[in-house]
């Protein structure tokens, strides 16, 4: 439960308010994780934050986190310089069902910074291409400036048996891509519902709507997974801070099948 000091290797700016940090474990240790897991990152004097891992699971020499700077704690985190340390606990939680999804078509549906916890899935599927069917990446951002991992999106779009559909809620006249909320991409989706596993991450309303739309198109609620976000403290199922209905998001999640949490998603305060 005590954070260990990881060394900042690199901080890079993704969008005007979102940054990616690469951290090296102390003593050259290996940093294994499952896509969808998170760590608790400690910034001295400010506090501890649960942050999803956004890097490549096949590269355990470091862990990568993509953070949106929205308050003092995240601002302090993204202001770290190479060579400084960040306290790290974890990785924690149950991640995306990459084993169970072997042999199936994969839909990755991300909204805004929700692409960060799903990037490890994309890396994994592309690195093990023969183990999976068709890969579809649906990505919605607020506007063209806020598109994450722009260069990688372009590379992913060119991979075999991969479809990238991206959109922004609003675009300027110079924007050449699609405009409309993320669900408007569905009309261009080629879907084999019975053999599809969907993994969704983004604002809760977006996840709810995307999950329901996929289910309406025949995908089973057991095969639709969402990554939930709640305030966390211990991150190991002891303090109850992240309790959501009968679940502890830190330990039972953050990734849940839709069928297990559908009734909770409709309630406003839990």
């Amino acid at each position, binding site marked *: 439960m005590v954070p260990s000091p990881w060394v900042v290797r690199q901080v890079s700016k993704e969008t005007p308010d979102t940054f990616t940090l690469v951290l090296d474990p102390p003593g050259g240790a290996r940093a294994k994780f499952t896509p969808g897991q998170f760590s608790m990152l400690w910034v001295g004097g400010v506090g501890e934050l649960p942050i999803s891992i956004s890097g490549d699971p096949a590269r355990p020499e470091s862990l990568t986190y993509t953070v949106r700077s929205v308050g003092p704690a995240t601002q302090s985190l993204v202001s770290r310089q190479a060579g400084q340390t960040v306290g790290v606990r974890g990785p924690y939680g149950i991640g995306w069902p990459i084993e169970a999804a072997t042999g199936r078509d994969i839909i990755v549906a991300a909204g805004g910074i929700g692409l960060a916890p799903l990037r490890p899935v994309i890396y994994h599927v592309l690195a093990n291409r023969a183990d999976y069917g068709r890969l579809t990446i649906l990505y919605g951002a*607020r506007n063209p400036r806020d598109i994450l991992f722009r260069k990688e999106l372009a590379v992913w779009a060119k991979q075999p048996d991969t479809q990238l559909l991206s959109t922004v809620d609003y*675009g300027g006249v110079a924007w050449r891509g699609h405009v409309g909320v993320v669900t408007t991409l569905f009309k261009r989706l080629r879907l084999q519902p019975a053999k599809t596993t969907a993994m969704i991450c983004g604002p809760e309303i977006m996840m709810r709507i995307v999950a329901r739309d996929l289910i309406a198109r025949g995908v089973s609620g057991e095969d639709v997974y969402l990554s939930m976000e709640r305030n966390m403290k211990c991150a190991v199922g002891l303090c109850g801070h992240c309790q959501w209905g009968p679940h502890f998001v830190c330990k039972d999640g953050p990734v849940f099948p839709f069928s297990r949490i559908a009734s909770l998603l409709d309630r406003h305060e839990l």
Partner: protein
Amino acid sequence: MEIHSLEQIIAEHPFFLDLDPAYASLLVGCASNVRFEPGRYIFREGEEANHFYLIRQGRVAVEISPPHRRPIVVDTLIEGEILGWSWLVPPYQWRFQARAMEGAHAIALDGKCLRAKCEANKELGYELLKRFSQVVGGRLDATRMQLLDLYAAH
């Protein structure tokens, strides 16, 4: 010959999926083939709304021009979708502007002609209204989601 091919195109467009062939024959009298060069405005806000378009190819941006600001694209439409429903409801004026982002092919359906046919044939009118209600409903849902500004920092 051209009439026949237009009828076929109308019948095969997703907006008219499973349409009674008799209605497709009626609609074809109001239809024409159109093509828009990239960057060309198809209509502008405030103009009389005399048509709607079945997009066959290309991409069209639906834009709004806030006062003293550059236009904002609020939606893009592609092949298989329809552009415009202001022809259907008074005052028959475009609320937005539409621009071809790339070269676009479409079937234009003349609103005045269609309104006259719908008045004369209420079943056709009801059929069209049902299809347009779905489109308008879907766009209203999408607009509500846009208003939520889901990805803003809270």
